């Protein structure tokens, strides 16, 4: 009887697996020449195809500047087709803001154009890309078909770069991964903060060099005279609210880890710390707290633990 149930369940799952997976990407104009493909604030899942990231592009006189390429080869191809429906201009430059899979795994669809990143981003992607790919295939399944790591071909230096009538100020920061690029379009006033700013979506910490480093980056970004902020995840904003939320959340996380270690709590206790009510609008807080404790607890323990062995 149970065997029958199992076989029926297997057959029921077959049509799903055989269905055509397609991203429905709808770029939305958010400023002069500037378009956003806004992802959801969900986690990677087979039912969203990993369409959980913000990707943007600027249609300049010299061609399109694309900021990040999405989670998969299939996403990259859908993105290129969507850009083609907005403008006939060629892609002039693709930028990878940092090495995380949701920002760079669409690179293959742009293999014929220059793909640029910070030097550190290229190194990190070369070192960690294959492991990211393994995990994304596990989480997203067939959405990832054909996706392989394609490294950036050009290195970006911080400073102002003018492309087709847009003055782009490139800021080399570190707080999220150790090599994070933010782009401020001085011509339109749009700040592309990438994953240095998460808004209404819990921030992720697998490679942060430290929450203090991240806070320092935020202080630098917030000083920019932007009129529109595009976070890496979450809705765009004209005001300073995303920075206030980021500072509040990072401060809470830092304090939580410090206090848990000082009280002698183990990792599971820290992972189960109540989430303050004021963060109720932010998605995935518990999930990301579990991850952040995994990533950061040993560093906080090291500040409190002392050498106690007696060596001969």
């Amino acid at each position, binding site marked *: 009887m149970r065997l029958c149930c199992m076989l029926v369940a297997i057959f029921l799952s077959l049509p799903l697996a055989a269905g055509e997976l397609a991203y429905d990407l709808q770029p939305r104009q958010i400023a002069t020449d500037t378009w956003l493909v806004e992802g959801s604030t969900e986690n990677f899942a087979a039912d969203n195809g990993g369409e959980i990231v913000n990707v943007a592009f600027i249609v300049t006189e010299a061609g399109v500047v694309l900021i990040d390429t999405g989670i998969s080869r299939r996403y990259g191809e859908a993105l290129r087709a969507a850009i083609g429906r907005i403008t006939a201009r060629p892609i002039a430059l693709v930028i990878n803001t940092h090495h995380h899979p949701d920002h760079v795994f669409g690179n293959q669809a742009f293999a014929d154009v220059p793909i640029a990143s910070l030097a550190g981003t290229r190194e990190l992607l070369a070192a960690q890309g294959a492991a990211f790919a393994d995990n994304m295939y596990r989480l997203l399944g067939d959405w990832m078909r054909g996706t392989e790591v394609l490294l950036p071909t050009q290195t970006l230096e911080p400073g102002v770069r003018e492309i087709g009538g847009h003055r782009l100020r490139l800021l080399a920061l570190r707080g999220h991964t150790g090599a994070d690029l933010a782009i401020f379009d001085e011509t339109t006033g749009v700040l592309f903060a990438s994953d240095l700013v998460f808004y209404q979506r819990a921030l992720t910490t697998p490679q942060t060099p430290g929450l203090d480093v991240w806070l320092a980056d935020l202080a630098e970004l917030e000083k920019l005279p932007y009129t529109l902020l595009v976070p890496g995840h979450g809705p765009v904003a004209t005001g300073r609210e995303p920075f206030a939320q980021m500072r509040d959340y990072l401060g809470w996380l830092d304090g939580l880890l410090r206090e848990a270690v000082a*009280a*002698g709590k183990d990792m599971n206790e820290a992972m189960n710390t109540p989430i303050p009510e004021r963060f109720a609008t932010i998605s995935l807080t518990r999930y990301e707290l579990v991850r952040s404790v995994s990533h950061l607890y040993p560093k906080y323990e090291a500040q409190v*633990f002392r*050498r*106690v*062995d007696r060596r001969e």
Partner: protein
Amino acid sequence: MTIRSMGLALGWLLLSNSAWAGDADPLQSPMWSFHQTRFLGEAPYEFDDRVVLSAPPFAEDSRQVPVTIDATALGQEVVRIVAWAELNPIPHIFTFFPTGPVAPRIALNIRVEQATPIRAAVLTRDGAWHVGSTRIDAAGGGCTAPSAVRAQEGWEEHLGEVFGARFAQGDGSRLRLRIAHPMDNGLTAGVPEFFIERAELRGGDGAVLASLELHPSVSENPTLTLQLDGRDAGQQLWLRDNNGNEFEAAF
């Protein structure tokens, strides 16, 4: 579904038709019956909420998954705690013998090779086992990943270093420790088993208060949390690995 897991599932279907010696497994694991026989033998057992097994629902890092086992609800009746990861290549994690001021509560990090049920079986003085369970989802590979310790130049010179602290908690205290050791499990090519296999927490007079038998499902640089009645009980730690190296620490 892999052929292996289908085989396991079929095995479970067959087993589940036979009569249970005790409760039915709440996780319906294909390997429960095998491990129950191996670790608990013929003794009576029950799945018991008083054994609280905490672990994250997913492994962010399959080489370092925190597991906490709290059987303090069973109090002084606890004789022994056995923990295992049901689908690991080396399932056995540890056997813990707390006595006197050492509470039946322990936390440490483990490796998982794939998504797996985790068990903690607690033996009480009446000869019965009380079992707590949870399940961890994982990308896996934690048992066969290259050692992070061995990747660091000069790691041998730090072997057996112990870092930690005692934390007051009410009338009692917690000991939290990290021991520098690769805990090699023999599953990485060319690297034989090399792991801490025994730890003892001793009083100031040398009397053993708790002993811990470790297996290499425990993560490298093992992190241990122990709970004690009293602010200064358990002043010495003694460790021995399977190569005969002994290490000591004091609090």
